[in-house]
């Protein structure tokens, strides 16, 4: 789990910490073109739409194959929205921003409160 982005909030244990907080997990398999594209796209996307209220966990299944079962991963890359619930899966290199928005069900922070 050495790819996990430093995250002091630990949203798993404290989901109500911030209802607008996005806990995202990106599953990749090695440093493939698609994986790298997905990572770049995800970071850019989060900075644009979720600045300050997200954390990203990148899991390389080449190193931790046992983790694929838990989140029912088939396609690579897969982005899993752990929080807010419900759980969502987005597959592909995240190049289609519109679909990512729909998939992650992104709302501006202002709507939350």
């Amino acid at each position, binding site marked *: 789990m050495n790819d996990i982005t430093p995250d002091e909030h630990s949203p798993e244990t404290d989901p109500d910490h911030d209802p607008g907080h996005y806990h995202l997990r990106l599953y990749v398999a090695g440093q493939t073109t698609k994986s790298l594209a997905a990572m770049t796209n995800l970071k850019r996307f989060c900075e644009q739409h979720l600045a300050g209220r997200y954390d990203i966990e990148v899991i390389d*299944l*080449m190193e931790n*194959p046992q983790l694929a*079962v838990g989140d*029912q991963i088939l*396609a690579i890359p897969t982005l899993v929205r752990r929080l807010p619930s419900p759980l969502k899966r987005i597959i592909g290199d*995240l*190049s289609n921003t519109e679909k990512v928005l729909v998939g992650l069900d992104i709302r501006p922070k202002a709507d939350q409160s």
Partner: protein
Amino acid sequence: MPDQQANPTLPKAPTGIEGFDDLTYGGLPAGRPSLICGAAGCGKTLFATTFLVNGATRFDEPGVFMSFEERADDLAANVASLGYDLDGLVAAGKLAIDHVRVERSEIEETGEYDLEGLFIRLGFAVDSIGAKRVVLDTIETLFAGFTDPSLLRAELRRLFGWIKERGLTAVITGERGEGQLTRQGLEEYVSDCVVLLDNRVEDQITTRRLRVVKYRGSSHGTNEYPFLIDHEGISVLPVTSAELDYAVPGGVLSTGIAGLDTMLGPGGFHRGSSILISGQAGTGKTMLASSLADAACRRGERCLVFAFEESGDQIIRNARSLGLDLDQHVAAGRLRFEAARPSLFGLETHLARMHRDLDQFRPQVVVIDPISALRGSASILQATLLRMIDLIKARGITAVFTTLRGDGSLMRDDDLGVSSLMDAWIKLQNLEANGERTRTLYVMKARGMSHSNQIREFLMSTGGIRLVDAYIGAAGVLTGTARLIQETQEKAVSELRLRETERSLRDVARRRSAIERQIEELRAGLDAAQDEEERLRAEDRLRAARVEAERQELTARRSAAE
């Protein structure tokens, strides 16, 4: 691995499914993917599970079950009734189950992707237990979860290539599609071995069938073979050997009826032969067969009776009236009845059950009563019986078939007979004459032995079955009362003759004593004549002496005078 095709013998992975390994000469191709396809409910998952469980328990080949439909719990529960303990095998590290859930609604596609995750999961599961076998059930579900079929096809092609590369023996199941074997045409990718399962309903009777559609690099049985799914799992009715190469067991089997044994040259039927008992209703077919069964059991052999018209208990009760105690044989485990209505299953299923029962019970004698109860078209019946006989003969079992049709045909207006398949044929006939019916029996044929060509009358009583020689004379064959009358008449005639002879003898004796008497009289006459003769001779001598004496006296006187 790619070189395997050039090998003279393709390595095979046995499935442990009874019959299937015979018909594929060893099992599925080892280290390659095989496709098992069929409509819903025809046993694909069970086939795949059996393949894995047998691999883990019998062939020391651990396996991975990747289920795209059923959850691991359901899977384990479904096969628990067959005695498969999936959870135990998982705990022992011999089986890994991975349930792959594909939910379209949860997945959003946002660009390029591949199915590397599936490969990683499978690879991980395989590596974790050192699996040699893999089941993917049913991988076509993926097509419902992802929108890009061309990408899926490419990935599946890669997956099957990967399976081959890893040397995994894989079973891939696929749902039957319109116009092709599977909905997504998986048979294009899995080209090494394709098995088709089928569940057909004809005349409201379901028969499961299995066919090996293709098997690259190996010969295989090409027919549709019936298979069974029941509490003992899957079993395929194996190839009926097209060759007639079974070993013939030696020895002669007594029928248990003294009179019948003496009609046959060696004193009974050859072991391992098929015997047909034909006759109309009430001619005693079942009882004759019961006698044979009883005789076998009393010799300590096992006998299996397939009854299609009566229950086992009923046969036992009826046989008791002949003084046969079949109950004791059942209790001793030497006799077993398998009673089932012919309409309960299709012919194929009957055959498959029969096959299984034969292998389990291992009888020396089998009774099938009656074959005329089996329903179906003539050609199918003929084929079924042929295979039934093959099945039995290949095991060296003596078979007794009864049939209601007196002429040995299967149906009315049908010249396809079963008689030519049989080694021996006993024909029972009721003869009607003089207001009564009598049971008669004769041996129509008995291959490989001399046999009596005579009609015998047979009697069924509490003492058992007894054969009586029928009266054969100038008036024809007489049985029953007619035979008795004839016999009485003959007796009367012979008594008359006896008395006449005695009278003649007495006459002769009388004549003889008369003659003897005459002889006596003559002899007395002769004696008298002899006496007379002697007396005359004596008188003659006296007279001569007297004449001499007188002459001498005269001479003396004359000399004195001179």
